[in-house]
């Protein structure tokens, strides 16, 4: 008989207006990698928060290694050997790696002061044992996102966790970092740890998980052996219908040029560097086509988008939308010129979390009719109706409908709300950064179809994504960017992963010694 590390039986949890977990059962065997799969808002994070003591279940039983427990708070969970790596890291930025790991759990020397030396050597030992490469003396603000995540993992290992929960760990990582994380999982498993992994990416589940529990709309659907279950089957269980992984893209003759960038140079964000982040870059996007920008993170994509959208001043060059020079226009003027924009960081830039959903959906249009009537008075009714329409059209799931606070929505549904808002602006030009980060396959299918529909309506779309799959799936032409320069632009038909990869990587390799 198998022993279970964790059993969550008949767990129920409700929030105002939603039953987030409806008698869910999750049984995790000892020393397995167990994936939890479910649509956005299916209740995965809620279930994990209950296991970690962040929320109290309304009803249900939790057993840890066969013993029934009531987990009151995260400290209790920690003492039971449960650790959690949150989607948004909780690290202190101006502390070192070591300080962050021991924070709240500092070893004391015989003199009673903090034994940093001892901690550093302990951490070094842990990091070699599990292959978690970090520099114990580095400050958090100076290390990459992937390394910050390794610090989070070390932090829970340092507290002697044997059951590790990862809530969407790959959503913030680049493809290279994801590969490394997969290796880390293997290593953790080999060292006897049990892993609970929440992810939307079926490929990752196939690559690492032993078993997978599927949730849909707060309900338990089933637990399957990953080896015997195809990706298609997993997706179907999760969404409740067949999901197609590729979008149908009818051939279309592109029209006139909408966005034209000519010889653009932009200074970097990391301030003092004399090297511009975008150098003499030129490209154009035409009506009815999707141009994909492929590249490794940190090669000027962010600066380029910020320059186009008006968040960052340009150094030299020209940006035009349908012939109109907007290179130095205000953000509002650019929006009025027909530019929609889905930003990469939805919490920071895409939404006002303290606002209701309906208010967020008119964030760019509230000041004009029909939302503003005479004398600057808002029409609450129109704002509400607009939200009702968009919720239906984009399948946004929110507990209290248009009145839901944006902060209480699940990550995926927040993203759907932003995309709904931007597409609904019906812009000439749609700039989309990482549109499906953290989204489930059903939502991805929906959003991909929307983006292609926009193209078919004759919009110009500029898509920035780290996922080559997404780029290949959607784009008519693909531009590879490296070190702030366009390496080349090819038709999708003539491109394959190797070619694009070489374009991105070739340049990186060719310029060794000049770290971006």
């Amino acid at each position: 008989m198998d022993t279970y590390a964790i059993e969550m039986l008949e767990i129920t949890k409700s929030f105002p207006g939603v039953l987030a977990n409806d008698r869910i059962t999750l049984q995790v065997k000892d020393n397995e990698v167990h994936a939890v799969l479910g649509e956005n808002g299916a209740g995965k994070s809620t279930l994990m928060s209950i296991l970690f003591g962040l929320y109290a279940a309304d009803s249900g039983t939790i057993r840890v290694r066969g013993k029934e427990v009531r987990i009151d708070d995260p400290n209790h969970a920690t003492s039971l050997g449960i650790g959690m790596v949150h989607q948004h890291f909780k690290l202190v930025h101006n502390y070192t790696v070591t300080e962050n790991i021991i924070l709240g759990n500092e070893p004391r020397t015989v003199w009673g002061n903090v034994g940093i030396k001892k901690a550093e050597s302990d951490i070094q030992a842990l990091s070699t044992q599990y292959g978690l490469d970090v520099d114990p003396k580095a400050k958090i603000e100076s290390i990459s996102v992937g390394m910050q995540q390794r610090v989070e993992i070390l932090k829970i290992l340092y507290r002697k966790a044997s059951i590790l929960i990862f809530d969407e760990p790959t959503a913030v990582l680049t493809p290279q970092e994801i590969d490394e994380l997969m290796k880390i999982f293997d290593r953790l498993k080999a060292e006897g740890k049990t892993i609970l992994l929440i992810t939307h990416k079926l490929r990752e589940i196939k690559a690492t998980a032993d078993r997978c529990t599927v949730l849909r709309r707060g309900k338990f659907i089933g637990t399957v052996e990953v080896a015997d279950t195809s990706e298609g089957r997993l997706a179907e269980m999760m969404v409740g219908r067949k999901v197609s992984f590729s979008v149908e893209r009818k051939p279309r003759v592109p029209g006139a040029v909408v966005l034209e960038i000519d010889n653009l140079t932009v200074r970097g964000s990391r301030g003092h560097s004399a090297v511009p982040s975008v150098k003499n870059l030129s490209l154009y996007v035409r009506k009815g086509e999707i141009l994909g920008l492929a590249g490794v993170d940190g090669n000027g994509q962010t600066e380029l988008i910020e320059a186009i959208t008006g968040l960052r001043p340009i150094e030299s060059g020209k940006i035009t939308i349908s012939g109109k020079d907007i290179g130095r226009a205000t953000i509002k003027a650019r929006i009025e010129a027909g530019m929609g924009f889905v930003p990469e960081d939805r919490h920071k830039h895409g939404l006002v979390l303290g606002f209701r959903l309906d208010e967020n959906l008119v964030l760019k249009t509230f000041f004009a009719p029909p939302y503003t009537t005479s004398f600057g008075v808002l029409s609450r009714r129109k704002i509400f109706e607009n939200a009702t329409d968009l919720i239906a059209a984009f399948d946004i799931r929110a507990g209290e409908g248009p009145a839901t606070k944006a902060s209480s929505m699940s990550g995926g549904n927040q993203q759907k709300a932003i995309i709904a808002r931007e597409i609904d602006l019906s812009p000439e030009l749609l700039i989309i950064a990482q549109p499906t980060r953290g989204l489930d396959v059903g939502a991805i299918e929906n959003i991909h179809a929307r983006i292609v529909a926009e193209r078919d309506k004759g919009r110009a779309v500029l898509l920035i994504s780290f996922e080559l799959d997404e780029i290949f799936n959607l784009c008519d032409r693909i531009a590879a960017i490296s070190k702030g320069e366009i390496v080349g632009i090819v038709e999708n038909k003539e491109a394959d992963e190797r070619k694009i990869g070489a374009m991105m990587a070739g340049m990186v390799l060719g310029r060794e010694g000049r770290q971006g």
Partner: protein
Amino acid sequence: MNRKKNWEQILADDRTVSLFVVGLGFACGTLLVLLVGKNPAGMYQAMLQTLTGWDITRKVWNARYIGEWLTASIPLILCGLSMGFAARTGLFNIGAEGQYIVGLTAAQFVALYFPPVPVLHWVAALAAAGLAGALWGGIVGILKARFEVSEVVATIMLNYVAFFLSRWVSMAIPGANTYRTPNFPPTATLASGFLENLTNGSRLNYGLFLALLACLFYWFIIEKTNLGFSLRATGLNKEAARYSGIPVTRSIASSMIIAGMFAGFAGAAVALGSFNYGRVLGGYDNYGFNGIAVALVGNSQAGGILASGLLFGMLASSQPLMQSRQIPKEITLIISGLVVVFISLRAGVKLFLDWRAKKATRTGGRSNDE
């Protein structure tokens, strides 16, 4: 099950936290009165008399107390609105005091020099006060919006400037001595014979309607207009507001202008309502600073500020009545001080309530099982 959820929601509500905190302040005040060996009933009798005019010990009713209470609340409400309006845009307007002073000074100046045309006269004085306050706030807003000068530092400096400027201007008026100017013509004052009669000769004046209208205006702007929408968006997430094309710098400047206007009106309400001559200030009146507390307790909501302004006004104007009942008048200061401290500890209180709510669901859940 349903009741449990309501309970959880109520605890998460700002309004409840405020009420709870005020209750706690009163409880501590009561305890203190007991500790110094007095009867807390006297304190509550004094408060009752302030609120209703009813003297429970001597069984007499005098509406003047109500009038004085409302009069004391007027500048507190207006300064609370000033503070709250800025807070909704994410700004800390510690300069309401300075804006109040320039408003007061401008109102006095117009009261003395404008031709004594009925109605027009005080309207002009009010307008001048609003404009002066708006200008004083606007300077800070523009400094902040354009040059990222901290509004806290800028307003504190401008408080001093306003104070000395006010003394200099007021003393330069012919006939002024070190503490007052000549009398205003009666056309300048906000005094209302009707309200005075109604409240048995209190100093209650048309400033009351000014404060009520200001609350209404505040609510309307914040909740009902697109300007309020941009201000709130800026206050909650400046970056997202900027991304959405909301002119954040303009929001900040206009917010400070309107906040300054409210404080300027407060100055006018005091100058034209409670006095019939111009004052040469000898120190801060502190209404601006007290406005911070008013806005905090009122959660920067129009209705909340109105209520908390009335509360603080009541505490202030019940002082003499407490003294006459042998209750140290400082007790009101302690209560308001405690309320402010507690409200500042709101984060802590909220954490506690969250924890309580969690516990409540837990035990509630258990009884559901059985």
